[in-house]
């Protein structure tokens, strides 16, 4: 057993004093060379062995522990003349500007000092940020005359990145340091320096810590050549210049040379800290690539924080291509055997499972339900080999831990990027299956936003009992059928599930009893008693419905007639379920589709998630069996309309084009009347767009008349909401319509015209991207070009949108992630600041609500009345 882990209570930040740096250091570094001719590290060089070891075989000279255990030790470089730390240059400038050049006091009157100290004290006590008040002091304390000693102050400017200029005189770093030293300690806090952990003069460096070799490991290439880390390169530069500066100073070289060398040293130290500081040319590698120095290591998406601390690489994970499997439950995931043998679940051996564990070990790492490792109670891990397995089985006893292969029923975490919402990571039960892809039920495609055109997904295996328990009760797929975004189902039937259910339940569907039993067997639904006569599809579907279910709604195929005929609807769109029997109406997207399923929604809310999973599994299987019984296909025949219709559409379109010409003529004759608040040109555009839009819709309607849902499978898909829309079909059959760029007709291209085929200033339908043809007849070259323009805009739009909305979401999550509901019902952040006194003003969890409401009161009343005898 591992010992009890210590909890980190807080992290204190502070500056290091030169003494601290020297105390921490194990050696002074002086020589810029790293290795001697024999390839051994030079003492007092940058690779000094006392700085730590990387080689696993060697022992550290400083701490004695082996490579890998030794975290490394710092060294130090004494800098010949002080240099300014780039990160603090701005702060130094502001502090100097706010202090007197003579007496070094803050340029505040005594009264102000007392007032500010009071305010800062309070803020520190309340743990608020003092940044704003310090900013205020920096502006107030910018006085021409010191209130304490009456000295006239000169203006101090900063010349990026690190030069500080007073009047016309450039202060040297040593002078800056002297001034900072003189500032009395009681004034420190007013300048934003916490005197407990930092002194202003420490911002000017006199000694530089040298990070251990573990921080900047060198890589040995295959050629045997050594390649040093960027930081080592930079440190070599610093050492070299430092050495030269020291020698020159000792030799009493002219001021000018010393100045130059100092500048160079300052440059190297600056780029050592931040190689992207403004005003400094970045230091480059021999190859011309800018060096990655300290600030770059931390910053940005690939920096330490975001890629190693906020997100970490993990073991016990797998990734592969996904493919569909309609036969497994929505709760399950098919895992290839290959993966199941690689990633393992740790199991503690107990008297009750020891025999089972022995079997796993006996299978070894290569046979499927086997084991890869055994960990003894003392923490030693042994790999299971065919040769050693017998010895391991012999020694196995309670308290050991066996890392066995994944088996059916294990709980794993399944994830597809981008993980935009919590349904992007759900817990599934494992089904070990042959072949090499992850298999998932089609109903879980919408929450993951997955399809099978090559998508890959990740799987993570829980390693503790607690995590498995938590995942099983909170993260399982069936617990996420309802989306917290709107309180409706996000998991549900798609595509063929919908068309299948429609084919099965439509009025004309009647099955012989033997057929019914075939369908049911295939869908693995418990068989009902034979009734000796033919069944309607609605009766078959009713087998899945809970017995006491009552509901009425309009199906997706509802045409929204002016007057609803209810049960007598000729489209059979009025769904009535009485006591678990589908009396009328067809089953389609509104029944159990994702984002829309009414029946599914009601099953989850009334009967719980277990029932909902069962319902969804069997409903989709039934739909698939149904579609296989009926047969379902589509071809270009489905978009064929009779010649007569084509002629009428042609007529309609040419009439519209004529009307456009009339509008243009009215415009050129200045007869067109402008709409309020619009120019003539805008008015014309709007009117033309309207006419052409109408023409497309009308031609669509015309074509629609020839589409019969009973004969045409493409229409079945469009109307039931399975896939595609009527617009798609009419675009194929009748007319594609106006192409748009930037929300209007196409205007760009050549001067005053879209293409050289048109006259300058031509405004007609065709000249501005109206596609008169249908996809089926084919587009002419001009139409094709305009269509491509519109298409390209769509692609560009999507690319930009994903970037923008991704950033927005990152900001939103970052801003809100610390909020939680507290036991008193308030919503607070991690500081305890109240954001809401009652969550959502009514304490209702949208994920558990009925489309945002506690319950549908009208329905409850109906139910009460039905129960009490109508």
């Amino acid at each position, binding site marked *: 057993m591992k010992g009890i882990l210590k909890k980190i209570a807080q992290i204190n930040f502070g500056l290091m004093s030169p003494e601290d740096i020297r105390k921490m250091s194990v050696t002074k570094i002086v020589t810029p060379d790293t290795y001697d001719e024999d390839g051994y590290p030079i003492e007092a060089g940058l690779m000094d062995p006392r700085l730590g070891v990387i080689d696993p075989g060697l022992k550290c000279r400083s701490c004695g522990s082996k490579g890998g255990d030794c975290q490394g030790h710092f060294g130090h470089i004494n800098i010949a003349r002080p240099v300014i730390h780039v990160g603090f240059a701005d702060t130094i400038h502001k502090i100097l500007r706010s202090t007197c050049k003579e007496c070094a006091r803050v340029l505040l009157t005594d009264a102000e000092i007392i007032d500010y100290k009071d305010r800062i004290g309070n803020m520190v006590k309340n743990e608020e940020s003092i940044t704003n008040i310090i900013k205020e002091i920096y502006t107030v304390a910018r006085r021409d005359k010191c209130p304490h000693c009456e000295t006239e102050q000169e203006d101090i400017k900063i010349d990026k990145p690190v030069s500080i200029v007073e009047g016309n005189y450039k202060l040297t770093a040593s002078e800056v340091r002297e001034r900072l030293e003189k500032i009395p300690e009681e004034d420190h806090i007013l300048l934003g320096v916490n005197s407990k952990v930092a002194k202003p003069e420490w911002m000017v460096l006199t000694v530089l810590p040298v990070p251990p070799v573990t921080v900047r490991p060198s890589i040995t290439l295959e050629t045997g050549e050594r390649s040093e880390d960027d930081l080592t390169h930079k440190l070599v530069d610093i050492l070299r210049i430092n050495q030269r500066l020291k020698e020159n100073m000792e030799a009493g070289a002219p001021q000018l040379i010393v100045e130059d060398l100092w500048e160079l040293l300052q440059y190297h130290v600056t780029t050592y800290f931040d190689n992207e500081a403004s005003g400094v040319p970045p230091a480059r590698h021999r190859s011309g690539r800018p060096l990655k120095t300290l600030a770059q290591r931390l910053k940005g998406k690939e920096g330490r924080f975001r890629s190693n601390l906020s997100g970490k690489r993990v073991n016990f994970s797998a990734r592969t291509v996904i493919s569909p499997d309609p036969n497994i439950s929505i709760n399950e995931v098919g895992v290839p055997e290959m993966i199941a043998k690689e990633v393992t679940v740790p199991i503690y051996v107990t008297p009750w499972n020891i025999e089972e564990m022995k079997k796993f070990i006996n299978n070894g790492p290569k046979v499927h339900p086997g084991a890869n490792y055994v960990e003894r109670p003392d923490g030693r891990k042994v790999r299971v080999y065919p040769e050693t397995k017998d010895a391991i089985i012999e020694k196995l006893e309670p308290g050991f831990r066996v890392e066995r292969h994944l088996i059916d029923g294990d709980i794993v975490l399944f994830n597809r990027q981008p993980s935009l919402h919590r349904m992007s990571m759900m817990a599934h039960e494992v089904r070990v299956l042959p072949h090499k892809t992850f298999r998932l039920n089609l109903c879980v495609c919408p929450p993951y936003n997955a399809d099978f055109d090559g998508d890959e997904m990740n799987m993570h295996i829980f390693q503790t009992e607690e995590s498995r328990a938590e995942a099983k009760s909170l993260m399982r797929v069936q617990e996420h059928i309802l989306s917290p975004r709107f309180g409706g189902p996000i998991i549900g039937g798609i595509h063929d599930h919908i068309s299948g259910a429609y084919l099965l339940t439509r009025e004309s569907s009647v099955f012989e009893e033997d057929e019914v039993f075939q369908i049911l067997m295939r869908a693995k639904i418990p068989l009902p008693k034979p009734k000796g006569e033919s069944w309607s599809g609605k009766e078959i579907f009713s087998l899945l419905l809970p017995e006491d279910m009552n509901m009425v709604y309009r199906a997706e195929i509802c045409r929204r007639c002016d007057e609803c005929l209810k049960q007598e609807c000729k489209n059979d769109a009025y769904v009535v379920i009485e006591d678990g029997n589908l009396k009328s109406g067809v089953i389609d997207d509104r029944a159990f589709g994702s984002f829309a399923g009414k029946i599914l929604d009601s099953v989850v809310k009334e009967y719980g998630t277990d029932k909902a999973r069962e319902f969804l599994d069997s409903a989709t299987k039934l739909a698939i069996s149904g579609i296989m019984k009926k047969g379902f296909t589509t071809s270009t025949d489905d978009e064929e309309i009779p010649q007569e219709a084509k002629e009428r559409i042609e007529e309609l379109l040419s009439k519209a084009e004529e009307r456009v010409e009339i509008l243009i003529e009215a415009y050129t004759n200045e007869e067109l009347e402008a709409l309020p608040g619009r120019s003539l040109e805008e008015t014309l555009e709007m009117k033309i767009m309207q006419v052409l839009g109408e023409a497309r819709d009308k031609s669509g309607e015309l074509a629609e008349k020839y589409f019969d849902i009973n004969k045409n499978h493409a229409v079945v898909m469009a109307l039931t909401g399975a896939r595609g829309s009527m617009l798609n079909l009419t675009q194929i059959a009748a007319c594609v319509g106006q192409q748009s760029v930037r929300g209007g007709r196409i205007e760009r291209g050549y001067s005053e015209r879209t293409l050289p085929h048109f006259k300058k200033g031509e405004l007609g339908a065709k000249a501005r991207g109206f596609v008169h043809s249908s996809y089926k007849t084919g587009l002419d070259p001009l139409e094709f070009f305009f269509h491509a323009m519109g298409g390209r805009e769509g692609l560009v739009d999507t690319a930009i949108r994903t970037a923008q909305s991704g950033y927005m979401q990152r900001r*939103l999550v970052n*801003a809100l992630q610390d909020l939680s509901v507290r036991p008193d019902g308030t919503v607070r952040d991690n500081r305890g600041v109240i954001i809401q006194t009652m969550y*959502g003003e009514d304490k209702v969890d949208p994920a558990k609500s009925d489309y945002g409401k506690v319950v549908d009161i009208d329905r409850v009343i109906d139910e009460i009345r039905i129960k009490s005898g109508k």
Partner: protein
Amino acid sequence: MPDIKSVMKVLKKKKADFPESLIEEIADAHERHNLDDKELNELIDRIKKAYERATVEDGEAVGTVAAQSVGEPGTQMTMRTFHYAGVAELNVTLGLPRLIEIVDARKKISTPTMAIYFDDEYFDARFEKEEIESEAERERFKEEFVRKTANMIGKSSMNDILKNFNLNYADMNIAVEIDEDKIIDKRLDRDDIIKRIEKAFKRVQIDNNMLSFEPPAPSKKEDDTKIPIRELRLLADKVRDLQISGVKNIGKVVISKEGLEWVIHTEGSNLGSVLKMEGIDKVRTTTNDIHEIEKILGIEAARNAIIREAQNTMEEQGLTVDVRHIMLVADMMTADGSVKSIGRHGISGEKASVLARASFEETGKHLLRASIRGEIDHLTGIIENIIIGQPIPLGTGSVGVIMKRR
């Protein structure tokens, strides 16, 4: 309201603590369905059970869920600006850009607009006072009033009331004729216009509707390089563009009738000035500029404005997002009494934890500042605990177990 009382009585008896909105809903259903006591009892029993099931669990990470629920539909939104439903004449930023604008709490939004409603009580008072009886006449009065107000709000320039505009290069002046009909049509005040003209231009002669402008006299100095003809043309532009009426910051206005009611939509926004005008419904008149609402009506109004704007944006795109998520975003933005943006200049930049700030944006700045300030990170947030590898203090991680020693 008698039915609220009876509902409350039952609730008290059942010891059910329902939020106000739910009680109102029950009372409403009570009235609509005409429930008897037994039915009401049963109803409340059932709702109580449903409410208990639907309440949030303690420790629930509502913030993250809200952020995901608002952010995730972003990928499905459009980028373009479209016409406002109903008012085709105005372009309003919609979709993702508008949502980003809202959470950014931009000071200058790209398309500020107002919806101005009228106060029926004010009209009634006026009708009484001026003894307007017939319905038709009242309607006419209303329309007249609305048009007049619209012209007071909307920007008009000289260009809108000109009949003739002549640049006379020979005499070096501009002859302008004002169209009296247009003034009347726009319901402007002629004297006021003249006053404004006189104020704006020194060298102007006014003879009834004929105006004559002259460019400023060339100065006597030698080094005057002004070209007279150019001066004249510049003056012409100035005359045309002279604003003769309107509220500051408001450009075009569009009058429309929504149902039985007159509404003015504007391009540009100035809530403060419009609310001071006569006959305006001060309750419903609104703007889409959140900062303006905050300035004029206060932080709670700004919070509601954020919720309304964000929800309208979502709904317009056909996306459903529960209000509670949007409410939480709005409450977070307004929690400390001023509208703060979501991002590095607002909420994320003011977090207490150094590590949380450093891991979001501007890593170096935050770490360096923390070191001289001697900041202490108490590690109470999410990212901090992830960074140091501890369980996060939310959900399951927010509770501990205490064992009783025997």
